[in-house]
């Protein structure tokens, strides 16, 4: 029998949770290996192409479950490569949520105030920029104008886009061809590599087991580079510390599969999944009304007809992000672009009384595609998702060569979630159907269930061992040396895009991981600056980190 390779820290996944922890640990002196299930793509690998096999399908994972489907990144850089780079911070009330458990869901140590210095580090590292109205696309401007017309406010959403390079092509979900989107390929990952970290793409972790010296052996399959249904090898790596950041749709599956060799998992592993309360509505605009009612024109007799133009979400309505409102009635309404192929089938014809995702009227609606405005709702859901037994490999039974699979997640929305969706749908309708601006209908949940691009909470932090899998330092209860730092650690829906919060939590988790690594004999220190060397974020978090290093 050959001896497995070994490393100090094995990081599973290279999205926000993996890249950030890998950078700090490598910079601090640890030997770090990152296993990433997807391919390693950059620059000209990012196609403007819907052809199966282009980056559009290579870099994504779409897993259909029972009542919930999850779209996630599947490449080096994870979600950051395919995301829309919307990077708002979560509103303060979110951290006080009680959700379904009758007590504060978040650990007592974390609030918006205590997380802000960690948010600042991400803002410095990405970097995150506030947007001017000049940066706001036609679709975002239209949404702002409609919100204003109905007596509401509207905000340009802070993001990670370099507007000097952006050409508003709206192909962000295929990866950015123009290096305008600030993904992890431009900050944490190259910095981690510069400090000696190694990234192995197309390595899909299957399970963990304990080694005799108190460390962990991590078993992986090597995935075929074109047909992800095939494996071209397998292996194992021993590590003193394991950081799981495979995404909220995969991390709990790896842990469930590891239970026979690792021992019993905390009850909350694979439970309390949240889809971030996400839902979509499609509005089909009446171009004349857009001109007459909102006074919008983009020249050449065009009022709007600009669905295709832009850079994802640019403007959000935050009027309902009001902490004085009861839980489950707070949400944001964000303008979004959703490309064809990945969800257009779910759009329903406004006003239809029978299922209308297909057929003659749907075809007519598609003819008006340039006049579509898609509104993305993020409510507070009820953490009602549960993962069933894991599939033989990975997190899904793969159907297509790339992207499409069936997974074990089931999600049956509670009355709280359904009521919140209904309220937010009515709000979108009120804004966009006012004075005949548009006709609006929500996407159907009947085909592939609800649809989330921001899976969360399936292995969450908390103070209560019965409802959280991780302690407030992200260590897996009962399994010292295993940490979880991806979206699965976030306790619940955030009412805004979660990347910023996932990233801030990962930054905050690093001191605790460093401490655990040192206790296991790894020669590593904490205190690296921002990936590009800036230090103002570090200055503000050092006192907080000292506390986390001591505990």
């Amino acid at each position, binding site marked *: 029998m050959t001896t497995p390779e070994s490393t100090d820290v094995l990081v599973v996944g290279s999205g926000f949770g993996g890249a950030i922890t890998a950078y700090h640990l490598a910079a601090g002196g640890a030997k770090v290996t990152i296993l990433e299930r997807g391919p390693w793509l950059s620059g000209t690998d990012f196609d403007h192409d819907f052809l199966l096999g282009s980056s559009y399908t290579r870099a994504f994972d779409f897993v259909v479950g029972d009542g919930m489907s999850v779209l996630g990144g599947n490449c080096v850089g994870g979600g950051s490569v395919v995301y829309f780079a919307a990077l708002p*911070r979560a509103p303060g009330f979110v951290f006080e949520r009680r959700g379904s458990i009758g007590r504060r869901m978040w650990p007592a140590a974390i609030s918006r105030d205590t997380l802000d210095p960690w948010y600042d580090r991400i803002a410095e590292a990405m970097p995150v920029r506030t947007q001017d109205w000049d940066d706001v696309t036609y679709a975002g*401007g239209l949404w702002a104008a409609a919100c204003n017309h109905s007596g509401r406010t509207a905000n340009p959403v802070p993001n990670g886009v370099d507007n000097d390079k952006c050409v508003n092509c709206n192909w962000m979900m295929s990866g950015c061809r123009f290096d305008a989107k600030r993904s992890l390929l431009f900050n944490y990952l190259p910095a981690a590599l510069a400090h000696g970290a190694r990234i192995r793409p197309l390595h899909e972790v299957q399970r963990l087991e304990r080694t005799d010296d108190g460390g962990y052996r991590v078993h992986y399959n090597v995935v075929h580079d074109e047909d992800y249904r095939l494996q071209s090898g397998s292996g194992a790596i021993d590590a003193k510390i394991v950081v799981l950041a495979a995404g909220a749709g995969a991390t709990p599956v790896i842990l469930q599969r590891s239970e026979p060799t690792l021992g019993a998992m905390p009850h909350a592993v694979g439970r309390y999944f949240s889809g971030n309360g996400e839902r979509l509505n499609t509005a089909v605009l009446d171009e004349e009304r857009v001109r007459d009612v909102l006074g919008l024109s983009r020249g050449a007799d065009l009022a709007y007809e600009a669905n295709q133009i832009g850079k994802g979400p640019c403007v959000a309505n*935050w009027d309902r992000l009001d902490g004085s409102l009861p839980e489950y009635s707070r949400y944001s309404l964000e303008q979004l672009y959703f490309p*064809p192929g990945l969800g257009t089938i779910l759009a329903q014809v406004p006003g239809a009384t029978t299922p209308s995702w297909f057929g003659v009227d749907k075809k007519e609606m598609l003819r008006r595609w340039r006049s579509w405005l898609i509104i993305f709702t993020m409510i507070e859901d009820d953490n009602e998702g549960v993962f069933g037994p894991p599939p033989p490999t990975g997190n899904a039974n793969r159907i297509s060569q790339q992207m499409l699979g069936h997974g074990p997640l089931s999600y049956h929305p509670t009355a709280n979630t359904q009521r919140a969706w209904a309220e937010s749908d009515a709000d979108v309708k009120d804004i966009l159907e006012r004075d005949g601006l548009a006709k609006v209908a929500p996407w159907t949940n009947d085909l592939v269930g609800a649809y989330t691009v921001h899976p969360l909470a399936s292995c969450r932090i908390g103070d209560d061992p019965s409802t959280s899998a991780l302690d407030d330092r992200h260590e897996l209860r009962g399994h010292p040396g295993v940490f979880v730092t991806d979206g699965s650690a976030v306790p619940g829906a955030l009412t805004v895009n979660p990347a910023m919060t996932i990233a801030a939590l990962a930054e905050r988790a690093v001191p605790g991981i460093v401490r655990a690594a040192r206790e296991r004999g790894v020669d590593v220190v904490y205190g690296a600056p921002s990936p590009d060397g800036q230090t103002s974020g570090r200055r503000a978090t050092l006192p907080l980190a000292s506390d986390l290093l001591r505990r």
Partner: protein
Amino acid sequence: MAAGTPEAEDDRTITLEAFADTIIPGEKRSPGDRSVAGAAPDGGAVAAGAIELLETSATGLTDGLDNFAGDLDAHARAYADQHALVLDDSLPPFAALPFTDRTALVRALTAPGHPEKVFWVMLSLFCNMAYDSAAHLHTADAIAAGHPGLTAMGFAVPDADGLWRFTEHSYGRKLADLHPDTTPSGSPA
């Protein structure tokens, strides 16, 4: 008729075309077109290349197409019996159904609770993709060739290098007041 014979393949194609045409209907390709019902003007999913896409092995559906067609025809036969419809036996049963009945059957097969829903949704998904994103073709080539779906949707023509760029992208002016609690970072409080 044995699976794999040319006749069986023809029947399979007719049945799958009739299904695709139910998802995104189109005009008949010729007066004698029997799989495309002609329920909508201009090309639909069939003209957009639904069969080519379904027969692309990357979808993962290719090996199951015989079963899809066979099961669909069996459902069509049962539907016809249930509704006392007499089907033209020169056509595979699903294609022999009038368009409204094809629609009603697809609605039933894809409704929550139907035991085979997941399969029919999957087939629908790829039929729709043939039309709305031409997933069997390079997008720039599809547009240059006048792909019915992308053309009808008004998907823009790319630049000469096959990439999309939009120089004009903004109304360029303030269009709403910011939320009063917005923090200096641009986030909600």
